[in-house]
């Protein structure tokens, strides 16, 4: 047996599910949407993609690193406000604001994490709640910068190196590409050795600490990374809708994102994606229910904690999924011995 059989070259066809998902997102869905030709459906599609990214970024911090984070929407808001301010005050385009808003959100998260990351369990949760509310108050009350409750109109739409992408289909594709890249990055990150180290912190941080894992530093990194992706989502949102206001980044949005991760199954990326789609599309599909939208979120969250404590995709099935489709931590090395869990 030679080495090439131990290390099979896996083409795209051996990973049907992500390929199928990509096919639907990039080819089938735009055709269907164009067939209906209603801008509203594009809005829903873009919104769900953005929430997929938010949910995936929350998965990194809450699902993988086990930090209950109740202020995620605030970092999304920081990203959106950065994008809106940079484009309306300095005239920067989407290509510049996208990374900058991610970096700003990450910087804010880093500064916030410096003092709070030593707190554990419920104290951390409540500290993040307080920080989320503080950031929300800043958005609401720093009127000179953020225009307060009136919000900001973002004049620049999506564009790429000078090409305008503000058509429906182009906007959809831009959002889909950015979200897909970010989700793949989060997937690689959470199913690598690094992700497994974060899982060890989630399971028992004192034990991990005793084994030489630098828990506080790793938690800070996970928190900052997750805020980066939330900031990217915020930038997409700001350029896509063209108008942002503090109301979009309230505590209830944080809870919505948390519910997505919980419903999908803590610690599973496919679960986070499915949870986001479920909680955005289900209330939209049941439009007739109207006011019942938010109550549905609460009910779905409660029932999933009660009946499916592991979520739709528990950690174990998600690990199987990851093993099949990403396989980063499980792929055999050239020597033949596997690394990670077998």
């Amino acid at each position, binding site marked *: 047996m030679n080495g090439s059989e131990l290390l099979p070259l896996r083409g795209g066809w051996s990973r049907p599910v992500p390929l199928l998902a990509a096919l639907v997102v990039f080819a089938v869905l735009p055709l269907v949407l164009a067939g209906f030709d209603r801008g509203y459906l594009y809005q829903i599609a873009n919104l769900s993609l953005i929430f997929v990214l938010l949910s995936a970024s929350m998965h990194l911090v809450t699902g993988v690193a086990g930090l209950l984070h109740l202020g995620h929407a605030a970092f999304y808001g920081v990203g959106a406000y950065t994008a809106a301010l940079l484009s309306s005050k300095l005239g920067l385009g989407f290509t510049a604001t996208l990374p900058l808003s991610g970096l700003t959100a990450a910087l804010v998260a880093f500064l916030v994490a410096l003092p*709070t990351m030593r*707190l554990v369990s*419920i104290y951390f949760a409540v500290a993040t709640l307080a*920080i989320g509310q503080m950031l929300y*108050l800043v958005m609401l009350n720093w009127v000179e910068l953020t225009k307060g409750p009136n919000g900001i109109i973002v004049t620049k739409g999506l564009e790429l190196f000078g090409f305008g992408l503000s058509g429906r289909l182009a906007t959809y594709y831009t959002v889909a590409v950015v979200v897909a890249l970010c989700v793949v990055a989060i997937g690689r990150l959470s199913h690598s050795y690094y992700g497994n180290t974060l899982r060890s912190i989630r399971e028992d941080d004192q034990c991990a600490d005793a084994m030489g894992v630098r828990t506080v530093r790793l938690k800070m990194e996970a928190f900052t990374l997750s805020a980066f992706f939330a900031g990217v989502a915020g930038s997409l949102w700001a350029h896509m809708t063209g108008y942002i206001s503090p109301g979009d980044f309230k*505590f*209830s949005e944080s809870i919505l994102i948390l519910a997505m991760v919980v419903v999908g199954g803590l610690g599973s990326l496919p679960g986070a994606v499915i949870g986001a789609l479920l909680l955005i599309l289900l209330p939209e599909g049941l439009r007739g229910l109207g006011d019942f939208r938010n109550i549905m979120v609460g009910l779905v969250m*409660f029932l999933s904690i*009660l009946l499916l404590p592991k979520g739709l995709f528990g950690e174990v099935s998600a690990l199987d999924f990851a093993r099949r489709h990403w396989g980063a931590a499980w792929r055999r090395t050239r020597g033949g011995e596997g690394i990670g869990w077998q």
Partner: protein
Amino acid sequence: MIDPYYLQQLAIGLSLGMTYALMAIGFTLIFGVLNVVNFAHGEIYTLGAFAGLVLISAAAPPAAAVIFAALAIGALAGFSLERLAFKPFRRFTDEASLKSRAMRESTLLSSLAVSIVVREGLEIGFGSQMQSIPFAYLINTPVRVGPVILVTGDFIIFGVAAAMLVGLQYLLTRTRTGLAIRAVSNNPLGAKYVGIDTDRTIIVTFVVGSMMGAAAGILTGLYYGAVFPAMGFIPGIKAFVAMVMGGLSSIPGAVICALILGIAESMATTFVSSGWSDMVAYGFLIVTLIFFPNGLFGARRERV
């Protein structure tokens, strides 16, 4: 001589702090026993206020009946909340099998989910607008005390808070139920081994704590004259801050810190602006968590 203006602000801050204290008493009681945050306490406060409002608009009864209705609804809500959101997730006996740290916060999430359902349900039933309380029931007749003007509600709320505090201290330190509550709060498994019915004790705690929360809701509703579905969120956060500052399981500590919080907020409103005044509470929370992990009135309990 102090400027009467500042004395007036101090009085306003004290009465604000008193409304937080009302809420914080029940909150601290529940936290002290189960060591979990009950995120739905704010909704129990709202339910108490709405129970009072419904009774007022339906029958126009005497004020005492309104309070009793709120207390009854509070007791019922506390009982069902414990059954729905806490009992299914309570595993005193198999703590070791709860492997994943991520799942240990499930009661926090479930109480959060229940609070969303209750709040949105109230919004569907009553609309998200403020409902005003009929004038006859308001407790804001001005009373002049020296240079400052207080309202009757300040005295009523102060009296109720003091009565609650004394009653609760009596319950906790002089009765068998209180002894059981303290035993469960100290060591649930040990309490079970010496024959205390932990399940019943926890229900009693929830009922008592939720009655206090509901009473706080209706009193605040009568005091400010407005009731709306989202009214419980901010006082819930403030009560939590007061609890953390007071040292987690110390009820007098929570009351004192609620007063400090109220005064600090009213000063912030005076000197900065009202929009930023909520920042004070969040700032206090962060500072306390970081620098005084045992709270200002040091609790004996080790921090988890």
